[in-house]
């Protein structure tokens, strides 16, 4: 009996070792930071529960701002398509026909410009929305990042594109993956019965 208890205690100590060591390290770092008045290291301020709640709120906010199609696109495919607003003649493309160019907006990835008629990838625009009020180390929840890009593109496309770093597609995003996303998008639209999908395929 005593031997069994000793073995059990030994196993418990071994299993709890890493957890105790982590707790001790965390306590030491917090104490040191408090004494020096310096900010906590990022791995100590990261709270997965808080991040999950933030993302949940962000999805609700995104859903309340974009239209039903865009929301369904983001929910099903993980990105949103935003039509390019400039035709060069000062007019905006109509809703019914394909725009001359469009953007794929991914969370925390570059915006990709492409030609809907041909599927040709044009360029990727690296843009982020850094935390100006905090320490600059945390970032927006994924859905907030998409919403920020959507608001910036639909309200002032030239401004946000002007702020972004432009590169050929392939610097950060895999072109094959983007082409696969375009195929997924066209299949998704086909299943929804979107006439623009048929336009793109026949072009």
């Amino acid at each position, binding site marked *: 009996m005593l031997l069994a208890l000793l073995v059990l205690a030994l196993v418990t100590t071994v299993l709890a070792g890493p957890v105790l060591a982590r707790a001790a390290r965390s306590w030491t770092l917090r104490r040191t930071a408090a004494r020096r008045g310096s900010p906590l290291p990022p791995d100590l301020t990261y709270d997965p529960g*808080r*991040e999950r*709640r*933030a*993302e*949940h*709120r*962000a999805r*609700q*906010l995104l859903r*309340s*701002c*974009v*239209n039903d199609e*865009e929301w369904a696109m983001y929910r099903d495919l993980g990105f949103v398509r935003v039509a390019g607003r400039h035709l060069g003649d000062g007019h905006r493309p109509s*809703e019914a026909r394909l725009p001359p160019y469009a953007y794929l907006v991914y969370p925390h990835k*570059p915006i990709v410009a492409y030609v809907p008629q041909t599927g040709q990838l044009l360029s990727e625009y*690296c*843009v*982020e*929305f*850094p*935390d*100006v*009020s*905090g320490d600059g180390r*945390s*970032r*927006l*929840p994924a859905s*907030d990042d998409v*919403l*920020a890009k*959507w*608001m*910036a593109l*639909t*309200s*002032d496309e030239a*401004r*946000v594109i002007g*702020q*972004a*770093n432009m590169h050929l597609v392939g610097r950060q995003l895999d072109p094959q993956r983007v082409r696969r996303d375009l195929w997924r998008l066209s299949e998704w639209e086909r299943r929804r019965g979107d006439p623009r999908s048929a336009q793109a395929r026949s072009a």
Partner: protein
Amino acid sequence: MKPGYGEILLTEGDPQLREDQERLVEEFTRQLDSGMWAAVPTEHPGSGRREATMVLDYAEIPPDAERVIFFPRAAGG
């Protein structure tokens, strides 16, 4: 929008009431001064197309706007 927190309600009120309006203007100015961009989500009647309108001044907020969303300025990534 705040990194790590998502949507946070900063303030709310009826812009028709003077006291509320002063508070709304104050918060609007404070957010822009801290480096945020402000946008108002809008919907086009008829087409149902949705987009956002960037506002640089409190007076530019459409009178029928229900909310103004502040988000960090874009920067090259």
